[in-house]
């Protein structure tokens, strides 16, 4: 099954074009972050003629980027940890038990992933506001409200992927543990989870990414104090000025960690998707 010369050539041409399409915005993000403000306000240049790191310094004072970053970090990490914990128990039940309602649960949970966010944004907003007025539990404009909301966003996919992972772990291991007298929970923690570490890590990163990148709910459910990066980054465009070099610098800083994390774990995502799709 050798490749013909024509096939090789067309493969290279197509892949080069695709790579160019992906690379250009990424390149512009990096190169513009290194330009002084005048250079991003004038005609576009491919190369930063007077490269400077000033944007990476200024971006912290133009908007309260530090606060947004802290809010995003808090919200995304706490949401990810809770989401994965909840998903582990649910996936263990679905993978290891046959019970009434199992099918209904799987289908319902997955289908909520598909509903338009706008559908429950308006009611959720009103529920949070009214709950706050009635009981004093501040979910609107608070990080707690955002955490609870986000952790349900990554839940369906996390459960689905973990079920795939748990299913691929031989049940013989469970049996051996049970013969040794381990209960269901000890079996989960001492046998199943250790064997599913890559899956759990991949799902954690996914849950973190979901919360880190969410825009719609963040734009409605936060105020200045609880604002996350998704909304905060828009602060660089004021009525009079857009600090494009600082926007690009800030974008770069908040993107690199998640992109690196995802790329490092990409093969576990592929494995998880494969395991889930086989069922």
């Amino acid at each position, binding site marked *: *099954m050798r490749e*013909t010369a024509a096939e090789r050539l067309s493969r290279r041409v*197509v*892949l080069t074009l*695709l*790579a160019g*399409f*992906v690379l250009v*915005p990424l390149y*512009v*993000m990096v190169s513009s972050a290194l330009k002084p403000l005048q250079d991003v306000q004038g*005609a*576009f240049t491919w190369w930063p003629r007077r490269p400077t790191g000033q944007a990476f310094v200024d971006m912290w004072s133009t908007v309260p980027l530090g606060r947004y970053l802290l809010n995003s970090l808090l919200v995304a990490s706490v949401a990810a940890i809770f989401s994965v914990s*909840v998903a582990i*128990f*649910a996936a*263990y*039940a*679905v993978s290891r*038990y*046959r*019970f009434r309602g199992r099918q209904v649960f799987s289908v319902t949970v997955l289908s*909520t992933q*598909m*509903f*338009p966010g*706008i*559908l*429950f944004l*308006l*009611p*959720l907003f*009103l*529920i949070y*506001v*009214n709950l706050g007025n009635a009981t004093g539990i501040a979910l609107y404009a608070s990080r707690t409200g955002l955490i*609870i909301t986000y952790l*349900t966003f990554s*839940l369906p996919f996390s*459960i689905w992927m973990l079920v795939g992972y748990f299913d691929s772990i031989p049940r*013989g291991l*469970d049996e051996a543990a049970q013969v040794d007298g381990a209960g*269901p929970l000890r079996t989960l923690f001492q046998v199943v989870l250790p064997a599913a570490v890559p899956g759990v890590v991949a799902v954690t990163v996914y849950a973190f990414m979901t919360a880190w*990148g969410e*825009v*719609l709910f963040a*734009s409605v459910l936060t105020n200045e104090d609880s604002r996350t*990066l*998704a909304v905060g*980054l828009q602060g660089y465009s004021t009525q009079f000025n857009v600090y494009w070099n600082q926007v*690009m610098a800030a*974008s770069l800083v*908040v993107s690199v960690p998640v*992109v690196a994390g995802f*790329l490092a774990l*990409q093969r576990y995502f*592929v494995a998880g*998707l*494969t395991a889930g*799709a086989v069922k």
Partner: protein
Amino acid sequence: MTTTTSPPAADRAAGTGRPTRPAARRPRRSLLPYLLLAPAVVLELAIHVVPMLVGAWMSLLELTQFHIRDWSGAPFVGLDNYRVVFDLDSAAGAELLRSFRVTVVYTVLSVGLSWVLGTTAAVLLQRPFRGRAVLRALFLTPYALPVYTAVITWTFLFQRDTGLVNHVLVDQLGLVDEPPFWLIGDNSFVALLIVSIWRTWPFAFLCVMAGLQNIPDELYEAAAMDGAGFWRRLRSVTLPMLRPVNLVLLLVLFLWTFNDFNTPYVLFGGSAPAEADLISLHIYRSSFQTWDFGTGSAMSVVLLLFLLLVTAGYLLLTNRRRNDA
């Protein structure tokens, strides 16, 4: 008939270890699975199911700015909100229909092109060559990037006087004399589509790549021995084997793209031009600008019903074809 097939059947059962199935797989009346599921169920109910029911109820109320703070006092108006939504002579109805049309065209083009790009890239990266791992990581990057940083970068690229797109078109290629506007007017739809494809195709690539790993090499070897070239192998081996993955992938992409809010919201900075006013953003803006949550909820319910209808039709159609085969 039964007597002749019983020995292999017994063998199969033994082969899968059915006689020694662990106790955990036997259905038994236990509370444990329900306890394990409880947190997930409670959260899904609280954040998805209950708000959706509340939303359906809200669509029957006159929920304007006077009643937002205490919406228990909002008057019940039945289907009045729906009448406004479907009244094409009213401004609200006409705008909703236009937004719906834009969204349909946007979804078809974005999903179709993203799928083609993703499948192409996955097939071309199927066999090992030098640089494959680098390309794979590069292609996945737009998917891993937070939406807002990706889209904000595109906003910069599409600036009329300072952006890369016009610099290339006008100064470097000389294709047009006057730099066009990209983020207002007719071009805004093209801009939105390009950004959407840039962000969406890597996910198609990821899924197809995962699907390709399940195709055994022997199939390709057999096809090659029969003298099948690249296109023949693609048509007779790759695409049929990818069918299960594609069925799910296309549905997921359709739903995500149809509900897309982030791309137009960030690209146009809050309010999209009419040519690129996707339905989620449209509902969002008309709800929060006029503080008329009743009509907004009615629009959301109609949107949900439409999506359910399309999904059900799609599942019926694809299932029937599978049964025919």
